[in-house]
């Protein structure tokens, strides 16, 4: 046991060095809430400027640890000989990002058994992703889009998807990762979404059916 080390990002967020991205995100949220400068927990213990500097350190720790590349470099720096609980994390981070680049097919759309004319929507996205040998987890880790949203995008569960403006960003990121035409994906997917949306209000405002 030792006194807390202000430079240890894991200790700052109070997470284990083997923590997953999700653990880190949750821990960061929890600490931000706890050390809210206007909150009661810090009252009488920290000066206002001290809380602000703590919150800055928390953000710094979060930004470092949530980025797989930065996190790997940081881990190597603070645990050069490898932390016992770090090995899991190393395997996890090492296994995910570098591989797909090498194995990405020249034309993912053709490799997925589609033509360039076929619309890029939910099921075709799944095919392309599989042709690229990418899992949803890998996409989630790289793009920071939640697993739930990614699943909904592929399953075309439009009712569970966020607004159009967010969808544009998500789809662009996915297109970039799968190396497909982003404009075409946006056009195809968003028009499918609009089609679904236009079918909603009529149903919603239907008067009570008469017997």
């Amino acid at each position, binding site marked *: 046991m030792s006194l807390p080390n202000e430079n240890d990002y894991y200790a700052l967020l109070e997470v284990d060095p083997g923590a997953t991205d999700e653990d880190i995100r949750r821990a960061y949220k929890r600490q931000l809430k*706890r050390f809210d400068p206007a909150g009661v927990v810090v009252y*009488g213990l920290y000066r206002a400027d001290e809380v602000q500097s703590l919150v800055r350190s928390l953000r710094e720790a979060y930004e470092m640890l949530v980025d797989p590349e930065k996190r790997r470099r940081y881990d190597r720096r603070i645990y050069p000989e490898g932390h016992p609980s770090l090995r899991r994390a190393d395997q996890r981070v090492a296994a995910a990002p570098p591989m797909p680049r090498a194995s990405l097919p020249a034309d993912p759309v053709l490799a997925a058994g589609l033509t360039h004319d076929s619309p890029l929507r939910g099921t075709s996205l799944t095919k392309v992703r599989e042709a690229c040998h990418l899992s949803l987890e890998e996409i989630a880790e790289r793009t920071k889009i939640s697993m739930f949203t990614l699943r909904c995008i592929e399953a075309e569960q439009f009712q569970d998807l966020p607004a159009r403006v967010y969808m544009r960003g998500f789809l662009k990121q996915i297109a970039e990762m799968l190396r497909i035409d982003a404009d075409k994906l946006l056009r195809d997917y968003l028009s499918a979404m609009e089609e679904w949306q236009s079918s909603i209000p009529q149903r919603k405002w239907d008067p009570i059916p008469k017997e």
Partner: protein
Amino acid sequence: MARNPRSGDDGSEPEPTPEDTIDVEEAEPGDEDPEAVAGEVPSLAGEILWHDEPGEKIVIVFAGGKGGAGRSLLVANLGVFVSRLGREVIVADLDPAGANLHTYLGLEPILPTPGSMLRPPGPPRVDRVPGMSLRLCRPPRSIEPGDDALRAETLTMAQSLEADVLIMDLGLQADPLTLDAFLSAHAAVLALVPEPAGVERAYAFVRAALFRRLLHGDDDPAVVARAVLAADHVGQLNSPTHLVAALSGAHPDAAEAIRARVLSFSPHILVNKCRTRADMEMVDGMVSALRRRWGINAEPLAAIEYDDAAWTSTRQRRPFMLEYPGSNLAQGIERMARRLLASTVRRESRG
């Protein structure tokens, strides 16, 4: 785990050897009205770890925070709970601001007369709560602010009484007598209410206790640390972590001693009268904040829900644990009691 099963098959009476655990069914319910205790038995189910050092009393103290944190109620009912386990318990009232444990235990107050105020106070009073293995030790009259002699005398009396457990309400001030009692207890509890003033007072008390532990006395580490702090004119050394770092160069032994004192200081944090989820989460938040700010390992003892029944039972002047054994508050107190007793065992096994 009980080492002393009382089978009775061989017809011999079992030896009254100390036990590691208490089997609840064996707890003597006392000889009062059986209906009064009937409702309480289920809430005592399960075994409790027991710190068993022959001849040594377990000392548990409650201190600090702010008035109205519910210290007296917690102390009185913890006493009732432990005595229900068949142990001999002393509760001691050392709160100069509001000495009223007797109210929560259903005992008579000591009423002064004009004449008694003119004479020197007699010895501290010790009264048994009828039907229970529980005694209250209190000053013979209310403690005037600054009357340390009367408090010290009551404290000495409480410590000298034979019992298994001594539970003390120290009040909320942070004077040397209180701090020393707080620092030397087997388990020291800081009770507070989840509001800014309560939290601030609680931190102020922990700060005073920590500083006394680190810096008070004539031993080398304290003397060296005081000298180093006195030389720090800009207030750079604003946490024990910084103090230890500053000492480690020229005074490695003092640095190590101070570090050990910081790490072995672990007050229990209890937040009482919680009404929201955020209130309940404050215990962990404060423990985390204390670790970051001063490097101390506080224990998250309990978050106890606000309970209207407490108000009613106080008005009836009956121990809460007996009146409302099934209430949230009684269950919260029971969880608190189990953790406290377990922590005294852990502390012992750590050596």
